């Protein structure tokens, strides 16, 4: 019998529609897989087995009754714990929200529920999405399924690891500076950061409001397009949501898979290669470029001279917004509440004690940075200058997109590093996101798909960037490259990953 956990979401959906398998069977298969590998991977913070099975049974019933269902109805999904889910604990990876059960659903969760996708659980992440390794979770590390001693990326390491380890066919991630794409790259999965405003932020626990964007985490490009179309589109509850309808993403993925990219101009960003990039990562990147060329694409070189300031601007804007967004976690209304151990119990002292005890070091580091950057007398030099850099990066992209239809780069400079390796070196950790951050600063969409294994036998990622609102280009190019790569590998890259159940 087929292992249902190995199917892509599109294939599983097809079998569900054909009545070959039930959603309860599919959901149970994933819960069983979780039971087997979670002790090693720890991708989930909360497993919602009963709720998922109830949704699955309901979908099966409705399907049997002949109801018209969404094409993904019955396909299980994992949701990053930064997205609020009514009735399911939501911690954002922080002690300060331990035990909090939201009274409402994020818009994207409403859409998932309305479409009948069983939510398997909530995935691990760096606290408040601050990190590139998931080591900043208050609830323990998540391990990379390719090598359990290595990081799964971050902040969405839990979603990427869950999908890579066949603990879910689909997952939701959020990407503020690369938190969907970098985990995808280091786990051999697919991750898309949509255009800013493409997917509603209502119900995402905000880190940096002007940069945050939710998106799909999957094993195939087509699956990402299916999930993106489900969760995307206008939401009147998010003022920054794009009013126009999404471009045809699934159609673009299907078109791309046919493999013809004749006439497409692919721009290679000069500044996102070379020094600091692992040779194996660059080798896979250039092989992928050759494949795109073989499919008819024209490869051009483009320069984005202001990208060198992107990381610096990002580490001013992101902490500034985060320092304000995280102010609400004060022990007054929800979540953790800590009273001072001595002295008077005033509101101010309870707030201080709660935040002191509830936030981890990386969160405190960014709150302090942001508070400083916004302070009177420093605002212009820090926040103000960073916003100017942001404008320059947007102009770089505008110029580059005049010369190319999509831009490409390695997603990350290196493959997954060892757990603990960069924990005490924040700057080294921050450098992981050097290739992903510019897209967030400009609000444009980006996709990462696996480009092969580097010299160390670990997956490397290939990033595709498109102009704002042209997310369909990501899926066309991504699906084309994916088809060509899989042909060269003789199947999906993940089939080369070690078997996590060897001890069984």
């Amino acid at each position, binding site marked *: 019998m087929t292992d249902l956990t190995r199917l892509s979401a599109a294939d599983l959906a097809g079998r569900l529609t054909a009545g070959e398998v039930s959603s309860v069977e599919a959901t149970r298969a994933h819960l069983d897989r979780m039971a087997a590998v979670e002790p090693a991977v720890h991708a989930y913070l909360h497993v919602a087995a009963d709720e998922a099975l109830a949704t699955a049974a309901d979908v099966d019933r409705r399907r049997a009754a002949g109801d018209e269902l969404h094409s993904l109805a019955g396909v299980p999904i994992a949701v990053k714990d930064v997205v609020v889910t009514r009735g399911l604990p939501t911690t954002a990876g922080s002690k300060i929200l331990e035990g909090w059960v939201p009274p409402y659903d994020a818009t994207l969760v409403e859409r998932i529920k309305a479409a009948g996708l069983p939510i398997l659980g909530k995935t691990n992440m760096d606290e408040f999405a601050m990190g590139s390794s998931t080591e900043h979770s208050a609830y323990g590390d998540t391990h990379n399924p390719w090598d359990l001693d290595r990081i799964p990326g971050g902040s969405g390491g839990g979603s990427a690891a869950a999908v890579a380890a066949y603990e879910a066919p689909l997952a939701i991630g959020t990407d503020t500076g690369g938190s969907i794409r970098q985990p995808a790259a280091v786990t051999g999965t697919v991750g898309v950061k949509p255009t800013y405003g493409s997917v509603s932020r209502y119900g995402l626990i905000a880190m940096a409001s002007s940069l945050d964007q939710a998106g799909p985490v999957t094993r195939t490009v087509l699956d990402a397009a299916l999930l993106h179309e489900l969760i995307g589109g206008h939401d009147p509850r998010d003022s920054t949501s794009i009013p126009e309808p999404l471009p045809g993403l699934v159609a673009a993925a299907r078109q791309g898979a046919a493999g013809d990219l004749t006439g497409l101009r692919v721009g290679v960003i000069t500044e996102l290669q070379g020094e600091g990039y692992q040779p194996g990562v660059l080798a896979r990147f250039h092989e992928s470029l050759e494949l795109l060329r073989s499919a008819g694409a024209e490869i051009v070189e483009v320069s984005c001279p202001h990208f060198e300031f992107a990381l610096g601007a990002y580490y001013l804007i992101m902490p500034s*917004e985060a320092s304000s967004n995280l102010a609400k976690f004060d022990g*007054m209304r929800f979540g953790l509440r800590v009273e001072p151990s001595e002295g008077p119990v005033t509101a101010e002292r309870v707030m201080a004690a709660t935040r002191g005890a509830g936030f981890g070091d990386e969160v405190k580091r960014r709150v302090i940075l942001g508070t400083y950057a916004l302070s*009177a007398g420093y605002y212009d030099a820090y926040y103000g200058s960073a916003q100017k850099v942001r404008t320059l990066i947007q102009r770089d992209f505008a110029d580059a997109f005049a010369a190319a239809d999509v831009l490409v780069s390695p997603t990350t400079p290196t493959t997954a590093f060892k757990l603990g390796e960069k924990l005490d070196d924040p700057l080294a950790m921050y450098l992981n996101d050097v290739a992903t951050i510019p897209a967030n600063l400009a609000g444009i969409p980006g996709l990462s798909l696996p480009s092969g294994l580097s010299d160390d036998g670990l997956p490397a990622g290939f990033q595709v960037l498109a102009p704002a609102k042209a997310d369909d280009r990501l899926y066309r190019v991504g699906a084309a490259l994916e088809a060509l790569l899989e042909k060269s590998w003789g199947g999906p890259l993940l089939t080369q990953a070690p078997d996590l159940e060897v001890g069984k």
Partner: protein
Amino acid sequence: MSVELVDYDEAVSRFDPVIGIEVHVELGTRTKMFDAAPQTFGAEPNTAVTPVSLGLPGALPVVNGTAVEYAIRIGLALNCRIAETCRFARKNYFYPDVPKNFQTSQYDEPIAFDGWIDVELEDGTVFRVDIERAHMEEDAGKNTHVGGSTGRIQGADHSLVDYNRAGIPLVEIVTRPITGAGERAPEVARAYVQTLRDIFRALEVSEARMERGNVRADVNVSLRPTPESPLGTRTETKNVNSFRSVERAVRYEIGRQAAVLDEGRAVTQETRHWHEDTGITTAGRIKSDAEDYRYFPEPDLVPVAPSREWVEAIRAALPELPAERRRRLQGEWGYSDPEMRDVINAGAVELIESTVAAGSSPAAARKWWMGELARTAKTQDVELAELAITPVQIGQLQQLVDAGRINDKLARQVLEGVLAGEGDPEQVVVARGLEVVSDDGPLLEAIDAALAAQPDIAEKIRSGNLGPVGAIIGSVMKATRGQADAGRVRELVLERVQG
């Protein structure tokens, strides 16, 4: 701590007061500034809330379009320019009644700016106040401190927070420094706040009820030796919530600051609390440069960019504002300037307008409201509008007079009956039997009786001496309990004795 004050007249003779006023008005929109929670006054605590107004993780704001329209109305009524585009900003500070620990407000990009408004003092003097800006923001929740003696936080055992008010739309209107008012600064302050209150009501953007806190004023006061001197250090007295208190608070601060300066000390730049009961201010927070709200543009909202077409449509639909309305009514009613001013100062404009609409002449309406009713209100120590009589009833009363069914004296009795809750004027007339006697029969009977009872007077009249006629009329009026028409009685008496 008792504070020595300099006598007010002396203070203003030696110092030039400068004031500045910040008025917050709660907009009467159906829902809050940034979410769909309803606005309900007096609801159970924490029931008029959504994830947005509670600041729950993940919640996002959306600007209330009606609130923007109301803010533009206010801006236009205050002769402001309306921004072509403007943004909200976050004002960051930790306080339990601010659910997100930042207030979403406008900082350097207000929706309306550079305006002015003329305010009229009680003696008719018109004073122009320059408006620096009017900006949109959200209200905070309400803290209740439990267990202390005074309801203040000091000594309280614990505090309760009600977030029903959190997120209610506010417009804050900030004046430029108001100079040149001299000794009349307290009056100007009061008249300014009152003018704004009247404008809010006319614009139908707020119920503008001071006692509910719909309108709140912060008054800034500073003193300088002469009008040519640079501005002195100011204090900001927060939450002064009645017209009278605005005047008193400015007056108090002038006296207090003069005393501080006379002692050679410097005025401390601080916020001060107003104490309604004792009529004094006390020191609050010290305002220093250390206070840093870390303003930055609200990234969860897009800029508000009212199109010029929309602004002009709002301008075209603006209702008549109180000042023009008063000018129009004065013309229609034919009141003199002092008469109109008395009416305005008595708060009787609307009452008279309704009374006229109910069928009274403007002169009669003014006579009633500024005469008999004003005296009654004074005796009862209430506002005119609080009397147990409506403008419609006054209109009906006057129509009875005009129709000759009652005379002035009877009308006062009818009024008394209406005020006593005996019903409409018509009902009082019937119930009390107060109608003028117009049938000659009963009058002739009374005349005959009076002539018979006073034969010597009757004789004098018959002999052509008309002097004592009044005595006979008096007797008849007495006999008919005032319901006779005195003129008719006179005619009948003369007919009787001379006929």
